[in-house]
């Protein structure tokens, strides 16, 4: 596995277009539905309402109610129905409004989608894509704001994606739909308005490797999803002060592309993981352990972590912000690592 090259707009023959993460996701759904009649979208308010985050706005008019299906508020059953439809030859995209609600469907995701292939001795694979919004930052408090990516990345049988760029929002869905097994896509709610330039003919991207978003030699910053932006900001600040940090966007949280992470750590000898999740048992813990297992003697300092505070997300803005990793903390963590 090799890391994806730097994705500073590499215009194809068709040039570039500027679009939001939300529009890129919608374009990805549209393209998939035009390409493959087996693809359909279902979930709460994906149709007439246009999607809770307006991702599916306009799709009902374009594709009709058979393929853009509003469901009752029955997470467990519409996710389970997605599994059944996948078994029956369709290629469902199931949208779950937020990661917190997905816990109502966790039984179907873990006990059925992730186990069927193995439990049936290889007879029944589940080509299902589940999309859900994740993360904090919109003052939605303790039942709409969490980052539980690691919970899903814990489960064998699933693939877990966290597109952090507009190009990945545009490109990961098609690859996920081509996958014979269940894929969970986490879309950070703060990314929907992110605007970036992507190739006008941008298409599918690999979902099995991390990307080096910024090259550096002094420390490795490892992150994903909604934390990529502020991690890059921290790297900018560090660069201004003479510390060149390499930034790795994991992109795929299961399976983890540790080759890319370890290659970077062998170069920089220092690592800091930025993870919006609660620290205990988070992906940051797993990555830290794997760095220890794979590159212990390369390390010049303990692996650092900047994680979300271990508290149900509070409503008040200053409290919420205090619970989330911020640029100064990332900068401090890198300085502690480099100075140590």
């Amino acid at each position, binding site marked *: 596995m090799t890391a994806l090259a730097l994705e500073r707009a590499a215009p194809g023959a068709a040039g570039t277009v500027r679009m939001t993460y939300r529009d890129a996701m919608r374009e990805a759904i549209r393209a998939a539905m035009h390409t493959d009649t087996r693809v359909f979208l279902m979930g709460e308010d994906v149709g007439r309402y246009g999607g809770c985050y307006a991702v599916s706005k306009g799709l009902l008019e374009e594709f009709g109610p058979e393929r853009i299906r509003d469901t009752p508020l029955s997470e467990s059953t519409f996710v389970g129905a997605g599994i059944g439809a996948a078994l*029956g030859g369709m290629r469902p995209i199931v949208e779950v409004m937020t990661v917190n609600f997905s816990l109502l469907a966790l039984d179907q995701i873990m006990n059925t989608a992730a186990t069927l292939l193995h439990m*049936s001795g290889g007879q*029944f694979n589940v080509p299902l894509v589940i999309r859900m919004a994740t993360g904090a930052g919109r003052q939605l408090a303790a039942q709409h704001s969490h980052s539980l990516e690691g919970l899903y990345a814990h489960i064998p049988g699933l693939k877990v994606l966290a597109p952090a760029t507009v190009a990945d929002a545009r490109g990961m869905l098609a690859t996920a739909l081509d996958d014979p097994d269940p894929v969970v896509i986490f879309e950070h709610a703060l990314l929907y308005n992110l605007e970036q330039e992507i190739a006008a003919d941008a298409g599918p991207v690999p979902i099995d490797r991390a990307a080096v978003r910024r090259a550096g030699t002094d420390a490795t910053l490892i992150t994903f999803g909604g934390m990529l932006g502020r991690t890059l900001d921290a790297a900018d600040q560090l660069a201004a002060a003479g510390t060149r940090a390499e930034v790795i966007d994991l992109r795929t949280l299961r*399976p983890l592309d540790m080759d890319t992470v370890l290659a970077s750590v062998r170069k920089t000898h220092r690592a800091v993981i930025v993870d919006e999740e609660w620290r205990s048992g988070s992906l940051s813990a797993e990555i830290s352990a794997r760095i220890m297992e794979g590159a212990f003697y390369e390390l010049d300092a303990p692996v650092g972590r900047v994680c979300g505070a271990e508290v149900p997300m509070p409503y008040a803005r200053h409290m919420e912000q205090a619970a989330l990793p911020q640029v100064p903390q990332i900068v401090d963590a890198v300085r502690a690592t480099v100075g140590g």
Partner: protein
Amino acid sequence: MTATAAMPTAPPTAAGDGAHALALLRDMVRIRRLEERCADLYQAEKIRGFLHLYIGEEAVAVGVMQALAADDAVVATYREHGHALARGVSARRIMAEMFGRSTGCSGGRGGSMHLFDAATRFYGGNAIVGGGLPLAVGLALADRMQGRDRVTACFFGDGAVAEGEFHEALNLAAVWRLPVLFCCENNLYAMGTALDRAQAETNLALKAASYRIPAWTVDGMDVEATEHAARTASEAVRAGEGPHLLEFRTYRFRAHSMFDPELYRSREEVEEWKARCPIATFEGRLRQRGLLTDEQAQEIERAASAEVDDAVAFADGAPLEDVATLTRHVYSEAASP
């Protein structure tokens, strides 16, 4: 029609000609003998894990399977040996699975609770109570969206009726008018909890009415009644009339699993139900009608016994899966894990 309307009663010759009647009897006997042997093999420690026997409930699976075509789908529970056998999964592959062998119908990775078979569209073998209902809804949705007139039969117990997924799945199937035949096997106990201790309304068919799903209560101890009900309901489902529900009143004669001292029900109650044994009563009825001779009855027993012997020999001689393949089938082979 709803639970309040009477199911058209089965004509006295619902089993049709003698050959069909004998086939119904044969399938029930096959299930009974296979499972009796399973119990012995459990004591002999050839079968391990949880083992849930269907003994007493055979008329439900056998009757319902008569109404299904080869390309229909079946979703079952963890008490599914009978459903698998009646659906056409071989006794050899079922037994090999319980022995944990690689030639078992799930390659030894499923066991008693997770029998699967793609060839007969048998989707398990689900050990999460109620977990199969959404799956059935999705299979039916796929059929609907691809313009196929197939039926998905979904078996579940009275325990599942207490799960949220029962209500969610019935509602969604009804809202989308999907071709699901919901088959509730009401054996009066959710493990050890009696129905009337768990349900405010013990007429389970009545619950379907709140989703505008036609439903009937059926004598689950009478294979002619179960077949007739399943045929009637599945024809309506296949004709596009939306989901239907059948509540089969039945009873398991054995313990819930092999670890159950049966403290929650009386011996008298068990004996009362045993007197309604679906095999013995149907056999008696066929003899009365002159459709079953002693020779035929003996032949059915002999064949079932031979089939079980053969299955056990096959399972005992079957290879174990190479432990080097431990992590196989976590992801599809073509894709990189």
